């Protein structure tokens, strides 16, 4: 009995130490990636190639989701606002919620599941098939050659994807409320422009998406690089990438929001 208690306490301690140790490894890895990033910028072609895979190929899902999120926002916002006779404020509702929160967050979540998982799987498989070790043998640093370009490609793509998500969302909201339902076009845009501030809303949204880009790709490359070199290990790492980065995005969003929008209308 006593022995069992000791064992379970040990299990808790073991898990805690393990996760802290892992966080430390991840942080050191992150610093390592940043230190070895010079190659990515000297040979920018490597980054361009990765931007194609993580950014351009994520466009379809980002644009289509943005459109539908905006359409749903417009529809639901209209339903509620028309009860108060202020249905023309639906533009403000759609634009503010997209630019401040939904654009960066949804785009980052989609980016994590579309591109983050792909990065993890790719790097994990490279490790499992000893490609990274082979690179090391040829005196090519795998972090500089494989990891850093993917990291920077993600960081660069994320704000663009979030901005496109927001634009598509505003367009979707416009489509549903102005074109289909018949909210007045002029008040839709004028109320939106009166409410959306460039510095406080748009720039803060872009800053958010930059943070999310760093978080998602850092988690993805770390999980890939850290994955056990087996089929099971790679699949587990891919799952962890999506779960961890989704949680980190949502948590980080709360922290950033409480810093940015405290006391702002």
């Amino acid at each position, binding site marked *: 009995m006593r022995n069992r208690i000791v064992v379970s306490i040990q299990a808790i301690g073991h898990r805690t130490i393990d996760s802290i140790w892992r966080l430390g490894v991840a942080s050191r890895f992150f610093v390592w990636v940043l230190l070895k990033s010079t190659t990515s910028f000297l040979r920018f072609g490597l980054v361009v*190639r990765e931007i194609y895979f993580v950014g*351009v190929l994520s466009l379809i899902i980002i644009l289509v989701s943005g459109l539908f999120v905006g359409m749903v926002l417009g529809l639901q916002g209209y339903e509620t606002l028309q009860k108060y006779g*202020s249905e023309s404020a639906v533009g403000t509702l759609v634009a503010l919620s997209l630019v401040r929160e939904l654009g960066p967050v949804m785009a980052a979540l989609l980016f994590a599941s579309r591109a983050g998982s792909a990065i993890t799987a790719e790097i994990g498989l490279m490790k499992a098939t000893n490609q990274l070790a082979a690179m090391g043998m040829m005196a090519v640093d795998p972090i500089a050659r494989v990891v850093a370009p993917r990291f920077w490609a993600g960081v660069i793509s994320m704000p663009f994807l979030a901005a496109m998500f927001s634009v598509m969302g505003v367009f979707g909201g416009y489509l549903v409320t102005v074109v289909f339902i018949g909210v007045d076009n*002029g008040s839709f845009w004028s109320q939106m422009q009166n409410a959306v501030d460039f510095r406080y809303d748009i720039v803060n949204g872009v800053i958010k998406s930059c943070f999310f880009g760093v978080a998602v790709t850092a988690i993805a490359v770390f999980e890939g690089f850290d994955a056990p070199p087996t089929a099971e290990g790679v699949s587990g790492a891919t799952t962890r990438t999506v779960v961890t980065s989704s949680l980190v995005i949502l948590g980080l969003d709360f922290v950033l929001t409480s810093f940015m929008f405290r006391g702002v209308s």
Partner: protein
Amino acid sequence: MSRTVMDFWVGLFVMAGIGALLILGLKVGNLTSYNAGEVYNLTGNFENIGGLKIRAPVKSAGVVVGRVLDIQYSLETHDAIVTMGVSSSYQFPKDTFASILTSGLLGEQYIGLSPGGDAVMLADGDKIMKTNSAMVLEEMIGRFLFDKASEN
């Protein structure tokens, strides 16, 4: 995928991203608003415009007939000069009444035109003489209290 094709798509992606940021920033996408062709300008002096904004609709009998183009403060009369662009297909008599109204309880403000009976129509650049200011809640409550007090 050849290098040049990839470069092309990435270039397009970055341009689209910057374009999206620009659209977000300027949000001028389709500001054109109410471009029902020809418009003529009318001005009106209002004592208080409340929350009236540029590009707010100008309505008559609930139909949108134009847009607010400009709002200026007049140094001579110390009130607001509102310039409206009204579609040429709508003509209004000289003694039209312009008032700033609110749609619904919390809705946006717009200018309502109530046509009079004059035979002469308003032309481009004319000034609407009869105007009614926006309803300001505090003033209204103040007046109500004042009236109540004077009753006793």
